[in-house]
């Protein structure tokens, strides 16, 4: 039994190696890391620039945040971008000019902010109650997202491509008469994908969070990544056994990538309040992943219980489908 399992493991490893799955994972790792380090970390939005046209020097205590322009045309050109605020101080009473942003409250704030820069600055600074700075938050956030996407979509696809290859080669038919347990057939694949996913998780976290921060979150992240990896691999296995060819499967994959993961990102990333998202199983998996990156305690034992149940259920389903498929193949 044990020897049989080892040889299946070896065969699966060789198959994965030949399907260039690792190459794809490495490519994704490089692509994601480059994007995070060179682009995402630097994303920010600055406060509205304020420009003043003040030929008579009416305002003497203007904040250093305000830029002086020399002509009224210059001022007009500056505020026409729809983001900046212009102050026209050429007449007796200064006039604040803005191009509307389409939101009344934002317009009000822009005007009030520009006006406040004309009087002496206050020394008030906002109190910070969190531990992350902007960069670290960005890193944690985007890393958890990429990891979720990679584990949810790519693992699913990779396992399926493996199964289709085996179907084509007739491996499933051969397995029907081999004295090897069907569970071994499933578990060997799960083990390999779990292992490769965990290595991926480890590399992605350490490269993008830094060694110490990455190392600190890894134990918790590993649990979430493991759960997600096993669930997605089992789902991929089930779909691949049931669906007749790879083309139809890739359709399923597209639906998964777009209609299942996109709402999850939208709900978790922005402040949109959707009540129905609580019924979306992937949402909880994603939040588990994200919270583990932010080291915020979130889920109770019921979450793990449901995950364990889902894994057992999926395993039984795959086992049944495989038995059925082998019987069909003769």
């Amino acid at each position, binding site marked *: 039994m044990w020897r049989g399992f080892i040889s299946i493991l070896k065969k699966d490893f060789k198959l994965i190696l030949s*399907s*260039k799955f690792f190459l*794809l994972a490495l*490519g994704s790792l490089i*692509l994601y890391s480059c994007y995070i380090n060179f*682009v995402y970390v630097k*994303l*920010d*939005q*600055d406060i509205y620039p304020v420009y003043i046209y003040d030929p008579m020097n009416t305002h003497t205590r203007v904040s250093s945040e305000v830029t002086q322009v020399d002509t009224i045309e210059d001022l007009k050109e500056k505020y026409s971008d*729809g983001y900046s605020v212009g102050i026209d101080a050429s007449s007796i*009473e*200064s*006039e*604040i*000019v*803005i*191009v*509307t*942003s*389409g*939101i*009344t*409250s934002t317009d*009000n*704030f822009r*005007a*009030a*902010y520009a*006006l*406040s820069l004309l*009087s002496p600055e*206050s020394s*008030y*600074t*906002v*109190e*910070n*109650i*969190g*531990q*992350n*700075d*902007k960069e*670290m*938050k*960005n890193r944690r*956030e985007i890393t958890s997202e990429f990891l979720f996407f990679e584990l949810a979509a790519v693992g699913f*696809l990779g396992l399926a491509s493996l199964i289709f290859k085996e179907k084509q080669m007739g491996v499933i038919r051969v397995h029907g008469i081999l004295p090897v347990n069907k569970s071994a057939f499933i578990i060997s694949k799960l083990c390999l994908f779990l292992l490769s996913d965990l290595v991926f998780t480890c590399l992605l976290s350490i490269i993008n969070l830094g060694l110490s921060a990455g190392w600190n979150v890894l134990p918790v992240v590993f649990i979430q990544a493991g759960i997600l990896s096993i669930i997605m691999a089992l789902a991929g296995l089930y779909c691949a056994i049931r669906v007749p060819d*790879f*083309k*139809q499967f*890739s*359709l399923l994959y*597209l639906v998964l990538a777009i209609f299942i993961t996109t709402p999850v990102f939208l709900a*978790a990333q*922005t*402040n949109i309040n959707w009540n129905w998202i609580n019924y979306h199983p992937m949402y909880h998996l994603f939040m588990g992943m*994200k919270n583990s990156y*932010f080291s915020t305690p979130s889920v109770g034992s019921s979450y793990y219980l449901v995950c364990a149940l889902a894994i057992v259920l999926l395993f039984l389903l795959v086992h049944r489908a495989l038995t059925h498929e082998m019987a069909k193949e003769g």
Partner: protein
Amino acid sequence: MKGIKYQLKNIRRDKICIISFLLPVIVGLAINMLSGVSFSSLSETSFGIVKNDLSHKSVQWLQSNGSIAEFENVDELKASVLDPASEMIGVLRDENGIKTFLSGDELQINRIIGNTLPKLYAEREAVVASIIRVIPAANSNDGMKSLLIVITMVTAMFMGCTFNAMSMIGEKEDGIAFINEVLPMTRTDFIAQKVFLGFSGGVLATILTALTCIRVESGHIFLLLLIIILSAFISALAGLYIGHFANGLMGGITYIKILMILFLAPPIITYLVVPAGSTLHLLSYLLPSSATFYGLMDMLNGQVQNIEISIIALLVHCIVWLLLFFILENHRYKKSLV
């Protein structure tokens, strides 16, 4: 002509192609149905307050400057401010006005708003007394919405590569590629057919998407068509490259995935982050999708004076990509003779 008929017949059975054809159209419809309000609430500053803490007047003042979320107690408010997904600014009563707090990971703009809010609150009377002129925006299109529309349109155009790439890879897998070698069909005919396949798919999908979600002035329809045609042609060429290099379906899907990320992400980022006219902005024209993206964005904003640059860039891309492909083909042909 007959060849093209067969190609179209063949592609009709391919479910990936049908989905990638319909997807942008469906997304376009969805964007159209979402009202502008749901987008604008995203870019509003959000303040978090505690019930019965601030006076009624202060709450009204906050409401005129952003959106408000009310919480039962300070702990709930703190939890919501700490939530990494939120950009919420916590506002509490102070002895002479209000005080603010943040989690410290917010955008620069919200940190400054947090710093200045108490001062603004103290000076709120001055704002009422001052003269404020609000100029209506030139275009009524919501910024976020037009960005989404342009992303959908660019996706639709460059999805065209899926049609011919998938068809070529399918032929390779089924062994039809070998049969093609002995059929009385020249290499140029084959390329023309495959380009037409991707091109027509891309153009059709984009026009359908455009019908569902874009409103441009009638004078600009010709320009829009020109951009669509040029971009779809480049996309068809890209499909040709993918079909040429990919050996299996899995590889093909990977290449398409990488191509779509490469074509979609940089233009969006350069558009949002890099100021127009800088070197980086100019460099971004090396990707054809950037030219399409900027052109469409200008068109939606009603500024077409710079659109020639996009069209010229697209034209150059068409010629360069086509030439490169012929060189590649020629090279392969010579190699097969040896």
